[in-house]
């Protein structure tokens, strides 16, 4: 067990942060709202050039064959930058594909994802339905190679720019995972009306592939949240040092500095969790509960750090033209991606009777 960042990972960090700094045009710079942004193909292309989307996939499939440790440090830079990118989304879609698609399709899709010519994303959520990876209301009909889907998936992040969508649907005998290439999005909503689809997996295999893929996507989100928290805390401490009230810098007010210390403590625990999630993601099979535990730690830290960062900035914290609220917005969203914080605790609670205590070594 080694939680230290290697020199190679540091170099990657710098490369990614350089790319993002050059291409980045976050909402806060132009003073638009913190609404989740649409895909930005230019930034994505630049990241593809540095090899980021290819990191976790095997060389055989067209990836770089690095791992989630690398992807996590890259995701942290994305988190710091406040740019919205389909990093976790492509990981979920890619992981489902690597686990379920036939060899040729897998190589084609992962290769295209790695070189930026394909953008596969998952479509799992449905309106007015609480988070659940299984038992969707979108129906799949057919058999063998011939399936059609009917129903609505929404919201589907990055649907407008997606080239492929991995869709969960009810096959009548359980949850199936399907690949749709004819992506007709209205905003981030996808409505299927007998849309033809390729079955990737169903039953237990589908559920297992989906659970692992979501865990991997969750590990990426942990990395992104870590970067966002670092940036939020850094900006907050800088603000406390420089902003004056009552003739003194805010850093003279112990009620604030002690709360900043709590933010730091939460950040450091979340850092451990995010690095560990990356380690676990590189294992096979993936320990899904271990990553849920990591996300749970990050959820709580993200809430504290994000909310306190705004509070300590006062009025400017809620303005669109100031960065810190955008970081909080993203942290809020990350914690609600593929389940709410309570959902994760609920999942872990359901499994709590199955072990005496948690061993880090798996």
């Amino acid at each position, binding site marked *: 067990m080694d939680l230290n960042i290697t020199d190679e990972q540091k170099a990657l960090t710098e490369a990614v942060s350089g790319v993002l700094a050059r291409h980045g045009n976050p909402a806060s710079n132009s003073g638009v*709202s*913190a609404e989740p942004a649409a895909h930005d193909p230019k930034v994505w292309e630049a990241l593809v050039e540095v090899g980021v989307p290819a990191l976790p996939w095997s060389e055989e499939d067209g990836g770089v064959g690095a791992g989630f440790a690398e992807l996590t440090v890259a995701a942290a830079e994305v988190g710091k930058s406040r740019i919205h990118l389909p990093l976790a989304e492509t990981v979920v879609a890619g992981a489902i594909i690597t686990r379920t698609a036939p060899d040729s399709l897998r190589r084609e899709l992962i290769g295209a994802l790695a070189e930026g010519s394909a953008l596969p994303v998952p479509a799992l959520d449905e309106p*007015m339905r609480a988070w659940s990876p299984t038992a969707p209301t979108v129906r799949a009909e057919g058999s063998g190679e011939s399936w059609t889907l009917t129903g609505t998936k929404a*919201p589907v992040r990055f649907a407008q720019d997606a080239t492929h969508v991995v869709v969960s649907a009810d096959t009548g005998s359980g949850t199936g995972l399907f690949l749709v290439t004819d992506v007709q999005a209205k*905003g981030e909503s996808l409505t299927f009306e007998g849309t033809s689809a390729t079955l990737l997996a169903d039953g237990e295999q589908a559920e297992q592939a989906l659970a692992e893929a979501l865990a991997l996507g969750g590990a990426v989100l942990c990395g992104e949240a870590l970067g966002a928290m670092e940036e939020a805390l850094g900006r907050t401490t800088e603000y406390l040092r420089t902003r004056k009230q009552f003739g003194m810098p805010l850093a003279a007010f112990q009620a604030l500095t002690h709360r900043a210390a709590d933010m730091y403590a939460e950040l450091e625990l979340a850092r451990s969790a995010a690095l560990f999630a990356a380690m676990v993601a590189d294992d096979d099979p993936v320990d899904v509960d271990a990553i849920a535990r990591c996300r749970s730690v990050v959820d709580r830290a993200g809430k504290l750090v994000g*909310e306190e960062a*705004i509070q300590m900035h006062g009025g400017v914290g809620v303005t*669109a033209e100031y960065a810190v609220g955008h970081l909080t*917005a993203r942290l809020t969203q990350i914690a609600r991606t593929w389940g709410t914080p309570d959902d994760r*605790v609920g999942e872990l609670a359901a499994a709590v009777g199955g072990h005496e205590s948690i061993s880090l070594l798996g």
Partner: protein
Amino acid sequence: MQRRLSEEDAAFQQKMRTYFTDEFPAELKEKGTNRNDLDPQDIRRSQATLAEAGLAAPGWPVQWGGQDWTSLQKFIWDSEMRAAGVPPPLPFNTSMVGPVIAAFGSEELKERFLPKTLSCEIWWCQGFSEPDAGSDLASLRTTAVKDGDHYVVNGQKIWTTLAQHADWIFALVRTDPNAEKKQRGISFLLIDMKSEGITVRPIKTLDGDVEVNEVFFEDVRVPADQLVGEENKGWDYAKFLLGNERVGVANVGLVKKTLADVKAHAREVTRGDGTLLDDPQVAARFARLEADLMALELTVIRVSGGSKDGKPDPASSILKLRGSELQQDVLELAIDVAGPMAASWDDSVVPQWAADAVPTYLNFRKATIYGGSSEVQRSIIATGILGLKG
């Protein structure tokens, strides 16, 4: 102590309920109570209607349109108004500048301003905060220099809510830069927003909306008879006002309505074979928030509230402190009820309430910042109530 309403109060409650439910114009209630969704003209109409019925500012002196009600009756008035979805009167008018003019203004000022303030013929905004005077309000630097029978105002205000719709602004200005204590050189001035030299710059918030503004004053000439009370006594009036404002900001009625709405949504969202409200963890969050809200509501009734003898009641600080936190907790629950839908802010993709969940949550992080931040409230409690002077 007694729980049940007296016969008199029960009758009062029935009267309020009948008015707000049956008599108040339905078309004004349909748009909801979110100020941003309402047309400014609707807000004016709503308050004018209430004023006509004698229900816009019961806390004011009877002579100026207030009511001689007990605090329980004022509470019933507020509860029934909120429950019926009636857009409440503008707090800038009825809770802020109105009571200050009524308490400290000359007869002339009262006659000139109170009726139009009550009816919303004048829409007021508040000019207190400045870029370098937030929690440390007394550091404000906007100056008002006497020039004959005018003041000439220069400076900048910030976080001015709804300034873009306002007709007038009540502003704290520095009239004596050499005062021994910075609090002593401040005056309370009423300024027409159409005055030459005033510029309003909107500030976009995280939710994409514009509710707050910067207001710039450049050699704005303000007739000296628009000074409230005495020159250099403005700080006392501001403290009086903030004492009133805190009570309003407990916002129990609004939060209760929001929580009920969120619960209704939780009932509609499917989870497994049931609804999200069947989820024990979600239900527990509602149960906790309902208990918290109950305690806050009781405290609003219990703490007499408002300024006393021209001084704010420090106990009212707990209403602002906990009221704003509770509002934020409810809005956070709304996100989790929206669940996956909260990822979209687009009401063509998900229902309006779900699309609003995250932006509203983000915007209302301001609740613990404005009107005296939570930190300011804690300091007031520590010093003013607990006697903990550093």
